[in-house]
């Protein structure tokens, strides 16, 4: 009896160990791709990486950070790069995220391209200035009932150079069974202050990262982020400006307008429409009043869409797009900067184009 138990246990153990050893050996021998060279932007940079892992992680290991919100699972479609040579066939996971034009232009998702041989790729030039930062929370200040301002002191590297309007990707830590994710948040502080950044974060119901910021992140805790990313910044023209934002879309506009003030750009009349539901969703009112006082070229127009009709609110009411429509029936000479939910931005673009604004004068940051 004892013998048969021993034999069966021994057999199963031996069988499992033998097969596991075989697989490990095979993985070492078969899936060994050696050293592969990655050429980026026609020789701008050349990396030597150990083959076998994804392009996204191989690049990140060498401090080239491609934006990615899902962390390489192929579910966000952000990490697009052009792979001129060595990428192999398109993986079925990638297909839904690529347009036929992108497929023709060899655009791939970096997280789904496995480094098997030498690669020749192209990435946006600005990504070379992206790196990963370690920072400490200096304060977390509520702005409204569901929006906080996060002020981070940079530790390593100690300074960040960016343009007003760009964003960073904040990495949430694991908590209560939710995995670590990266989410993009616009920088709301000024580019002149390189030792700190500020972010404005709205609590998204059941959002992994924003819930972490609201309920788990504490003062003086250390966090990681990468950046700066994005092309959303003030264009170098003389056109008058219309800014439209809602909720935490405040962040890049708040930075851009104060940056204009700091840089002494006074010849471009600027109107900032800020949409919210009720009075309790408004913030920075006093700050903007002060800017209006100091800068005659600037006008702040907050608009509430769900404020009770009998309240003491004397400002604009209605959907932000209707308010913009009333103020600027002719927007053909203006430039527009939009930041907010995709729904708000699409509606705002429709109104502005309808009022004569050319498409290339409209800049936006959807989230």
């Amino acid at each position: 009896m004892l013998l048969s138990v021993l034999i069966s246990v021994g057999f199963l153990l031996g069988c499992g160990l033998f097969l596991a050893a075989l697989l490990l050996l095979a993985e070492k021998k078969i899936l060994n791709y050696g050293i592969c060279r990655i050429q980026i932007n026609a020789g701008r940079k050349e990396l030597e990486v150990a083959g076998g892992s994804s392009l996204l992680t191989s690049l990140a290991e060498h401090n080239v950070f491609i934006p990615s919100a899902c962390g390489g699972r192929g579910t966000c479609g952000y990490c697009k790069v052009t792979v001129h040579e060595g990428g192999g066939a398109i993986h079925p996971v990638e297909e839904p995220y690529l347009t036929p034009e992108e497929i023709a232009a060899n655009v791939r998702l970096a997280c789904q391209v496995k480094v098997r041989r030498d690669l020749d790729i192209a990435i946006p030039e600005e990504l070379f200035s992206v790196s990963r930062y370690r920072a400490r929370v200096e304060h977390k200040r509520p702005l409204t009932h569901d929006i906080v301002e996060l002020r981070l002191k940079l530790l390593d590297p100690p300074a960040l150079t960016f343009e007003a309007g760009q964003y960073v990707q904040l990495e949430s830590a694991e908590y209560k069974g939710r995995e670590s994710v990266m989410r993009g948040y616009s920088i709301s502080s000024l580019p002149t202050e390189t030792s700190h950044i500020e972010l404005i974060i709205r609590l998204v119901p059941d959002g992994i990262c924003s819930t972490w910021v609201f309920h788990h992140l504490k003062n003086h805790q250390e966090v990681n982020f990468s950046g700066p990313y994005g092309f959303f910044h003030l264009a170098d023209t003389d056109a008058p400006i219309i800014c439209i934002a809602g909720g935490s879309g405040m962040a890049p506009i708040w930075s851009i307008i104060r940056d204009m003030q700091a840089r002494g750009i006074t010849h471009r009349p600027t109107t900032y429409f800020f949409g919210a539901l009720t009075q309790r969703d408004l913030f920075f009112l006093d700050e903007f009043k002060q800017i209006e006082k100091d800068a005659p070229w600037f006008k702040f127009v907050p608009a509430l869409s769900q404020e009770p009709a009998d309240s003491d609110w004397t400002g604009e009411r209605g959907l932000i797009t209707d308010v913009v429509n009333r103020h600027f029936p002719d927007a053909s000479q203006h430039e527009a900067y939009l930041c907010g939910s995709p729904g708000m931005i699409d509606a705002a673009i429709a109104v502005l184009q309808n009022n004569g604004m050319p498409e290339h004068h409209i800049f936006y940051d959807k989230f």
Partner: protein
Amino acid sequence: MTPLADMSLLSSFLLIFVSAAFTDNILLARFLGMCSCLGVSKKVDTSIGLGTAVIFVTACTAALNYLVYRYLLVPLGLDYLRLITFIVVIAAFTQFVEMVIERVSEKLYNALGIFLPLITVNCAILGISLFMLNKPYSFLQAFSFGLGGGFGWFLAITLIGAIRERINEATLPRGLEGPGITLIIIGIMALGFIGFSGMIKI
């Protein structure tokens, strides 16, 4: 003397193949491998990809498990461990094949390799390895049983895929969409396959 032993090698090989593929179709007669069939049979080309991978894996694992059973389990008196041993062997084999395919040919990997992790836990493959022990097969006969069983599964999922592709163009009552209508299709096809069962008895 079993009737099988009388026959020439080739005809017994063929007979076993045909009976495993048609009269004893693993998907339609035994209803095994249903989960991956329901998931992947939306299109003919993915059905063919998965089906081909199943043919390859069933044939190889049937042979492999035959050897393990005959020369390890039986001599050691561990007959009752066949279920768990077969699972481990199948899982290790599919992992191994996935690695080899990925290394050897990227084209083949994109066509077949991505299905291999799905197959690791496909009950049809385990089923074939277990059913072959019910008959006094030789090594080659076991191999042909695996090959036939895999081919039967391939045939069934390809036919189902073709029917589903056509059905996608039609409007269905909402309650029948997806797995509902697929199970009905499989049921009707299974009825059709009963017709084969009178032909050969093995």
